[in-house]
């Protein structure tokens, strides 16, 4: 990071005007209530080139911290504190009136940085939405109403008569999510359920004939999807502008900064690890025992045992194996050897081989898929008969203990691992497991199954 900052000093002379717009963003609503910017259009602001990058880096630190918190499975109130702390630590500006400018500028710079691939857009969208969510939660209900109006959300207040008729059901919902029981003073809004699909999906609202009954304190769920879908569309547009004009126009000035900002921060994606090259089929069992993280080890063992894995498992293990260097032909042979024992070689060729070639980008839309990160695995939702997911999160304690024992984790370390898993620090649990097995420390922590694999191989090589 520091290096790039120095480089940009040479460009100091120039000033940049961000995308022009007719309207000022409503950083303050009519009655003077200060709200959170919705980033609907970029302001006409002059930005010094060094601020351009510095602001972006500061915001990245916030987003990166959020990403880390999510991966560790932090609870909403822990997240709220985390976001508030990260914001205070990184987004301060000596001049209070410029805080809001910094907020807006850094957001629009990162839009440019993260608009360029599907993967980057997804990450940015998810982190910005989370950031917005927790900032929103910290605001007052006046601000909430102002924002809802600004977003044009069709909400209606629930009348007293209607409330009385539904009181029993509304109380059931409130109790089921551990919230205060509603009284006649409680404010409820009635909205088409599609507006609050997130609350519907987690059964946190009562719905009747297509309408959801949302309590005032759940209002954030109205707002997030709007914020999200707007940002999502905006990112696609930004990408178009980037590829059609900006990249070329700014190739000496902004383009290098933008490109450096994204790659320097996301870390490797482990699509095909060049460093380790190939692993061959004959080594795979031995490598699985020595260097696979528990999630992959479990999938691998289940596959060897059942000669079958459901879709989620095939994806998680298949992409991981691709990442450690299993070539397409070997991958086909590997999966076929197992599946054909269960479904026959012919059915394998017909029904499953496609999926494997697809993972390697040889079928369908020909995307070379990247292996799943810990975050993605932790947030997956395995169902009955599935073996994928993160064992530290999805196994029962008993099964986790058995699995760790099988991996050779000593009893004292085992307790620590289980403790971390219980505390929902799944990646820390995995890191401890790694350290216990390899007898070496892993300071960076485990963020990706392929990183686990790589670190493990490095240690084993040194020992040789």
């Amino acid at each position, binding site marked *: 990071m520091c290096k790039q900052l120095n480089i940009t000093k040479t460009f100091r002379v120039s000033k940049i005007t961000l995308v022009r717009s007719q309207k000022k963003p409503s950083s303050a609503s009519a009655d003077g209530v200060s709200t959170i910017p919705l980033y609907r259009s970029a302001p006409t602001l002059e930005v010094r080139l060094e601020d351009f990058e510095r602001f972006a880096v500061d915001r990245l630190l916030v987003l990166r911290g959020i990403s880390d918190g999510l991966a560790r499975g932090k609870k909403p109130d822990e997240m709220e504190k985390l976001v508030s702390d990260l914001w205070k630590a990184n987004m301060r500006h000596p001049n209070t009136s410029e805080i809001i400018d910094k907020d807006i500028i850094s957001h629009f710079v990162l839009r440019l940085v993260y608009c360029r691939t599907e993967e980057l857009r997804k990450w940015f969208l998810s982190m910005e939405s989370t950031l917005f969510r927790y900032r929103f939660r910290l605001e007052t209900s006046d601000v909430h109403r102002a924002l809802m109006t600004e977003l044009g959300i069709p909400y209606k207040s629930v009348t007293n008569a209607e409330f009385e008729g539904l009181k029993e059901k509304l109380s*059931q919902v409130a109790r*089921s999510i*551990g919230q205060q029981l509603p009284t006649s003073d409680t404010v409820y809004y009635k909205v088409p359920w599609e507006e609050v699909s997130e609350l519907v*999906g987690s*059964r946190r609202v009562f719905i009747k*004939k*297509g309408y959801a009954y949302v309590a005032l304190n759940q209002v954030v769920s109205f707002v997030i999807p709007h914020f999200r879908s707007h940002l999502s569309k905006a990112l696609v547009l930004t990408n178009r502008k980037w590829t059609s004009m900006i990249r070329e126009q700014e190739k000496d000035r902004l383009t290098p900064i933008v490109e450096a900002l994204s790659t320097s921060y996301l870390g490797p994606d482990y699509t095909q690890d060049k460093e380790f090259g190939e692993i061959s089929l004959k080594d795979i069992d031995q490598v699985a025992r020595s260097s696979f993280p528990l999630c992959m080890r479990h999938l691998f063992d289940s596959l060897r045992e059942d000669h079958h894995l459901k879709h989620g498992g095939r994806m998680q293990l298949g992409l991981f194996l691709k990442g450690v260097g299993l070539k397409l032909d070997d991958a086909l042979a590997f999966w076929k050897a197992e599946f054909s024992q269960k479904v026959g070689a012919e059915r394998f060729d017909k029904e499953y081989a496609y999926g494997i070639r697809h993972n390697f980008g040889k079928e369908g839309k020909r995307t070379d898929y990247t292996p799943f990160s810990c975050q993605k695995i932790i947030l997956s939702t395995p169902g*009955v008969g*599935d073996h994928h997911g993160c064992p530290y999160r999805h196994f029962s304690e008993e099964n986790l203990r058995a699995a760790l024992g099988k991996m050779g984790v000593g009893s004292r370390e085992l307790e620590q691992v289980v403790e971390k898993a219980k505390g929902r620090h799944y990646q820390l649990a995995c890191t401890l497991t790694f350290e216990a097995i390899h007898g070496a420390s892993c300071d960076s922590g485990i963020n990706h199954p392929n990183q686990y694999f790589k670190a493990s191989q490095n240690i084993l090589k040194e020992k040789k």
Partner: protein
Amino acid sequence: MTKEAQNERDDMLVDDPEPQDEQIDDIPDEFNPNYLKVYYGRLFPHADMFKWLSYGNDGKHPACDQSYIGRREFSFTLDNDIYLRFQSFNCASELENGIKDKCPFKIDIGPVYSVDPSKRLAYAQSGDNIFTPVERELVFDIDISDYDDARYCCSGADVCLDCWPLMTIAIKVIDTSLRDDFGFNNILWVYSGRRGVHCWVCDGKARRLNNEQRGAIADYFRVYKGNTNSKSKVSLVGSALHPFLVRSYSDVLRDFFEKKLLCSQQLLSDERYEKILEMIPDESITSELRGKWQDNRRSSSGKDVNVVRWEQLKQLLQSGKQKATGIRRCVEEIVFSFTYPRLDMEVSKHMNHLLKAPFCIHPKTGRVCVPIDPDVCDEFDPTNVPTLSKLLREINTVGLQVEGDKVWERTSMGKSIRYFRGSFLQPLMKSCKEEIEESYSAKVQQSKNSLTW
């Protein structure tokens, strides 16, 4: 192909629209592609399918979208698993001829795309990704093979009258919620031909849901957490259940569990009760029950042993002594584990999933994918669904007396097609018409408004 045989028999079986299976033995039971030709030629309701998937856009109203049906993807599976994806048809006769011509083993229905899917490659060259799904029925796929840890009579794709009630439960729970909670009206349930049921929600609002909203509905229905390695498949937390779960439990699940599955699956017999005891987190309770049940293998009252044991278990778990809600909730968790619907989530979550069309013939069983009326789904018997060979025999018997199009009325498909038309298609067409007129008058209004500046 069996014309001769048919002629010989005509005089014998004049007024018998549903002949007994044994009477004719020249049509073996297994699936046969030649029979499929006859089926598509004389029984398959091409026109009704077209009417359905046009959603009123095949009419003369100025607001009808004439390109609508032509943007729908059909996918044919031919003999030897040759897939023909991205087929599209612009009118009823094109669809009918396409099906008769290719004689697919399976017809799948995909989404309505932004452009004609058969021309997608031409559009792809323009660079921007215009080829994208824009509409799709909200669909559900429930397979009985996903219930293998909840049934003992069959496993895998097999199904019998002892485990079929699991599907009946799924239909009742999901159907009620789709109507009462989500406010949908035009819902079609279909037997998948072998091991489960499909559901098509066809309201305009449902067809236009985005993937995120589809995912939310799927999640709303989901109670299973954790994978094979977690002990309890269902975990109901919180000091109360959501009203949807309460209603499902008290209106459907509890009764089916206590009155049907408990005994038909022998859930608390000597060999099986341990599995249920494992789901109770309190060891003093499990050992007390185990003690009772080990000593008393036979029930003295003459009542079914499963029923007696279930009463004992409930009494102990729900007695006033048990303060922790976790323990009292256990009874519900057990019932949910053995009865609650298990959806194939991925099918519902994404617009571009294909789903087998109603009235297809399942190539393994030869059974027709007939609609199921949710109001009388208790009466549905998968072992009694007409098979291709049965229908062929019926055609052979009635074929020559009845004029071309009316053959289906005299076969055992008649009831299904009448239901499809009368209870699904008619109300659907009515609401499509209303919707088209509404959108038209809104448009007219808008253009009027924009003129008055």
